[in-house]
């Protein structure tokens, strides 16, 4: 019988995870649009504003999108299978969110004597859970495609199922090699193992131990998340919109969000498996705790400097923009400059007054946790960006190319990688 505080902590962690994912969603959408724009020499979204003042470089657009999608007419076409039609987006979103349960986002949190592991469910099958749950996504796409009673949607669903099943094998083989290396299927064990150093200076990250596995896993992940260059299930030039063609309003929004959720989860899994998860390179949890004072001082100084830099830059922009737009949008840079100046003053003030180099052990532990969570989020965001970056760089595969790549090139390579890894592990540890 778990005591009530355990339950509350679990709920708290779930809430934190959800907040992080759902909070990152609009940022991802923004990054996708803005990144695509800059890659293509455009300026991207910059119109929507709050109060005619704050445009935040287009960050308001996802918000506007939400309003748009919520208030759009909800159309259920004639001839759909109503039950599965409504079930499909729910499956998509649920699967996308529940994968996150086993991903550790930090080492244990010390609260007095209590040690709280920073992951929602410390399952002993960790990575298998992820593989199992994420393969359920295919139900969402197939059901959506089939129940829509639309040829394009149906084709999209078919493509999605074939593609996901094909690439799941490669993904599984890549992960299997990784499990051999770490000797555990528990994700947290893997992350902890990645805290070591190879030959004393290289972090023993998965990518270093399993470079081929990493490439295979990453490619398979792109295919699993239906992201470009593997976005054939929703190839708009061929299938209009693919499996979610007949969805509108919030149900479409669910598919849309699920895609980004999958992306974030994928990024989190990659960083956990191959890039040390919450591990700060060269610094173990103990190391972090011992050097907390110095690190905090350094980060505060850097933060202050960056804030000042932003403030001056924005102020210059404010001066330059004056009189060009002819309305309240001109104020934005000025106000933001003041905000950043305030932040700089706050961090700088704390640096001078708060003696950050001399903090207690409890605070040190908390600082270490914050650093690790920050590290995890940073890595996740970076890999999410990789998803976007790749999408706006590569063209889409043809379907036969996709299948050939999966079965004729990646599968043998994955098997080879697995056998070589197994042999290596056998000879070194055996």
């Amino acid at each position, binding site marked *: 019988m778990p005591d009530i505080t355990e339950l509350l902590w679990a709920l708290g962690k779930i809430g934190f995870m959800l907040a992080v994912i759902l909070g990152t969603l609009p940022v991802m959408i923004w990054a996708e649009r803005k*990144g695509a724009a*800059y*890659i*293509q*020499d*455009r*300026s991207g979204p*910059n119109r929507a504003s709050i109060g005619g003042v704050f445009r935040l470089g287009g960050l308001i657009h996802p918000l506007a999108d939400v309003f748009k999608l919520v208030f759009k007419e909800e159309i259920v076409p004639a001839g759909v299978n109503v039950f599965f039609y409504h079930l499909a987006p729910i499956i998509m979103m649920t699967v996308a969110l529940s994968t996150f349960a086993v991903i550790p986002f930090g080492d244990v949190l010390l609260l007095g004597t209590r040690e709280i592991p920073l992951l929602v469910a410390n399952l002993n099958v960790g990575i298998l859970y992820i593989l199992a749950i994420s393969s359920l996504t295919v139900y969402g796409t197939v059901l959506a495609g089939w129940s829509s009673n639309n040829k394009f949607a149906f084709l999209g669903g078919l493509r999605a199922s074939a593609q996901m099943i094909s690439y799941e094998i490669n993904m599984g083989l890549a992960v299997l090699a990784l499990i051999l290396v770490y000797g555990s299927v528990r994700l947290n064990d893997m992350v902890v193992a990645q805290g070591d150093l190879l030959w004393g200076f290289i972090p023993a990250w998965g990518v270093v131990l399993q470079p081929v596995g990493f*490439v295979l896993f990453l490619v398979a992940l792109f295919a699993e998340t239906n992201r470009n260059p593997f976005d054939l299930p929703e190839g708009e030039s061929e299938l209009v919109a693919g499996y979610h063609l007949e969805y509108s309003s919030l149900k479409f929004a669910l598919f849309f969000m699920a895609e980004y959720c999958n992306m974030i989860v994928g990024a989190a899994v990659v960083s956990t498996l191959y890039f040390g998860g919450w591990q700060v390179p060269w610094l173990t949890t103990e190391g972090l705790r011992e050097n907390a004072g110095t690190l905090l001082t350094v980060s505060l100084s850097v933060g202050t400097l960056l804030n000042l830099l932003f403030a001056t830059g924005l102020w210059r922009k404010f001066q330059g923009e004056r009189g*060009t*737009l*002819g309305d309240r949008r001109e104020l934005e840079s000025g106000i933001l400059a003041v905000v950043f100046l305030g932040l700089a003053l706050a961090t700088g003030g704390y640096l001078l007054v708060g003696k950050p180099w001399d903090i207690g052990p409890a605070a040190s532990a908390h600082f270490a946790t914050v650093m690790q969570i920050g590290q995890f989020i940073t890595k996740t965001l970076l890999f999410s960006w990789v998803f976007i*970056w*790749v999408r*706006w*760089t*590569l063209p889409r595969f043809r379907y*036969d*190319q996709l299948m*050939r*790549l999966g079965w004729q090139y990646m599968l043998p390579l994955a098997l080879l990688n697995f056998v070589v890894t197994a042999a290596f592990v056998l000879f070194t540890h055996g």
Partner: protein
Amino acid sequence: MGYSVHGPKARTGGQGQGLLPKESLYLIEICKGLFITMRHLVRNVFHMGDMPTLQYPDEKPDYGPWLRGRHRLMKREDGSPRCVACQMCSTICPADCISIMAMDDDRPDVEKSPETFDIDLLRCVYCGLCVEACPCDAIRMDTGIFEIAADNRAAFQVDMDFLLNNTTDGVKS
């Protein structure tokens, strides 16, 4: 490095057809592509002013005097239309968007003048042939107005009064 869609190899897929070995590995090429896009991104982030995008409603493009904008009818010195309703413009018009009704004019030096001169701006393709055809330089497309939008069709059916005074602002209200 011939690539033939009819060749048996091409038909079976064309994976790596006509590529060098290091190109057919893809990964290096993908990285090159990624760096190209990243180069663009970084350049654009740090040199936003150099982007060719025009912040359209705030900044207006300068199309120069050769832009064929919304039509206008020229006036005589006394303010009456210069048009003599010869209907050359409506004859040449490929979109059939000009309709003119002519009338006898009582003035001694003017024999014929338009009673009505209507242009359906929704039909107009802005080819400028009417301007070329006009023997009296009565119709021009030099207003520079290219923002022609409205929320009802009637606003696009412009008449002689409108065209005679059509120099600046947007839509007929």
